């Protein structure tokens, strides 16, 4: 059942607006919350702490959903604030991530930057695992996704059932109702019959026959053209 209350749209708009302001407020030294602790160290250690909490929460046989959602949302915020304000080039080289991290973090602790980069890399793996049908070649160099991480990375993929890094195997039943959208996804569709009904599949189904028809038409044209060339002129023609 799609949850389409008004709140969701508003939330997206808020997030867009917030996305810009969140990036700036925590850098503003005059901000009361920021001036209390050094922002760089705070966000990094908070990030680690949040990831730990997430690990711990997910390891429960039946995680407290409220706790999980709140930790994930907080992790998103922290992660968003750790991203650079300017967009990164699509495939930054590995040193870029740590150096970006360095510029964000006041400390030049290489170990800290490295661990942060590796954590981000872990999150990348999870995102890539969720797009399993595509080959592993899609997985860019570590740190690629620092700039490419979408705002909704955190929860989406950390909760995905296919994750191997943060989640154990036996967590398919994390949420009792099986999320069949994975199986209904367009990416899984072989371009013919045997499709499960579903909104995405509905679309795929409609598109596929049209393609086939177009292809058929083209093939026919080619064949007719070829035959026309090949057929020797004869009396009946």
């Amino acid at each position, binding site marked *: *059942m*799609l*949850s389409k209350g008004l709140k969701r749209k508003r*939330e997206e708009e808020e997030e867009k607006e917030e996305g810009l302001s969140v990036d700036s407020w925590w850098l503003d030294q005059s*901000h009361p*919350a920021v001036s209390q602790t050094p922002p760089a160290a*705070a966000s990094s250690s908070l990030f680690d702490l949040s990831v730990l909490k997430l690990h711990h929460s997910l390891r429960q046989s039946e995680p407290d959903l409220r706790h999980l959602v*709140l930790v994930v949302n907080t992790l998103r915020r922290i992660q968003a604030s750790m991203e650079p304000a300017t967009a990164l080039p699509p495939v930054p080289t590995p040193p870029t991530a740590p150096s970006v991290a360095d510029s964000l973090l006041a400390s030049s602790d290489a170990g800290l930057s490295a661990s942060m980069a590796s954590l981000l890399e872990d999150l990348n793996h999870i995102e890539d695992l969720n797009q399993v049908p595509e080959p592993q070649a899609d997985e860019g160099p570590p740190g690629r996704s620092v700039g490419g991480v979408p705002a909704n990375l955190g929860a989406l993929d950390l909760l995905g059932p296919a994750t191997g890094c943060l989640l154990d195997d036996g967590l398919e039943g994390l949420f009792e109702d099986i999320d069949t959208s994975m199986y209904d996804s367009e990416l899984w569709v072989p371009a013919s019959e045997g499709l499960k009904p579903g909104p995405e599949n509905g679309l795929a189904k409609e598109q596929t026959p049209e393609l086939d028809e177009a292809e058929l038409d083209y093939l026919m044209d080619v064949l007719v053209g070829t035959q026309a060339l090949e057929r020797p002129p004869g009396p009946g023609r």
Partner: protein
Amino acid sequence: MAGAGGGGCPAGGNDFQWCFSQVKGAVDEDVAEADIISTVEFNYSGDLLATGDKGGRVVIFQREQENKGRAHSRGEYNVYSTFQSHEPEFDYLKSLEIEEKINKIRWLPQQNAAHFLLSTNDKTIKLWKISERDKRAEGYNLKDEDGRLRDPFRITALRVPILKPMDLMVEASPRRIFANAHTYHINSISVNSDHETYLSADDLRINLWHLEITDRSFNIVDIKPANMEELTEVITAAEFHPHQCNVLVYSSSKGTIRLCDMRSSALCDRHAKFFEEPEDPSSRSFFSEIISSISDVKFSHNGRYMMTRDYLSVKVWDLNMEGRPVETHQVHEYLRSKLCSLYENDCIFDKFECCWNGSDSAIMTGSYNNFFRMFDRNTRRDVTLEASRENSKPRASLKPRKVCTGGKRKKDEISVDSLDFNKKILHTAWHPMESIIAVAATNNLYIFQDKIN
């Protein structure tokens, strides 16, 4: 301030003078996990006070009839009935243990000599009947006093059984079991003003039940996203309006409240009203969402307001104004600078409840260090009190406590860093008509009464 009957207050707006009345529970320093009180609730008349604990037990206290000879004596609450409501269960399909902890108790309005209450754990709601037996029949024809059946052929005379008094026995029996309707953890139950239906809410759904029917419930709110990976918000509490049987509210982990009207459609996915206070940009932090998460929502008795509890404050909302609350009361603002530590030790996720007094003129909620706070809505005064064994002399007045937030600590003040975050008062209840409050401090139940009335 609040006299009997829940009506108007005496003129002059006297402050409450809270005094210790009773404390229930073990004195040991070592608290058994099972004894931790998880819910407290007065019944409609206030004569019965129910507590539920982590061990799945329900203990009901009954107020003794006041001794008419002593004008100022107040009825004490004594144990009336104790029973095991829920047992730990094992879900074999999911290999999960289901906790027996009682999350909520809600009384039904009394309709006959027996008392009924609903108690719930994470998955199952039960309707319990608590009835008294103080007579028993003697002189049956077909069976002996032992209960052994008599041979009918040996009966030569008939007699009419007579009722004889016996020691009062209070029996609790489960009358209905409402199971298998919740995938997620139940956080709320609320009896409708029609006295026939009730709602149960878990993290993502709210179901409507009829008290007589256990094999069917209607889903009225469902916020589960099509793709669970998109989940960003859960339901944290829900309640029916005290008078309008078609109206309910539910709160979320994002600090919003939705009011739904069941008349508009069968599935209340679209809210009739949406309450949210805009975020204060100057106090924004990484923890803004967590501290805005609402842990409890309660309608006022008159049905015109509702109160929400988030981590640092209690807010009173006018149901006709969605944009912001009409009152905001700070519970422990001194914790705002400690949010990071409280996040680290998970205290920031603690769910505090709140309650109204009978006349809706005052509200109460708990805090740490066994402190609890009361706010007088009329005089705008607030007080911090402590539930502790040290202040447990009979009828001893409670001394207001103060937390020192910085600078020089005055005598009798306690500094923020000295607060015991393991001593949390999450559950409190206020007598529906009189100035009597029940405060659950871990495994102890404190009862305080107002001296002035």
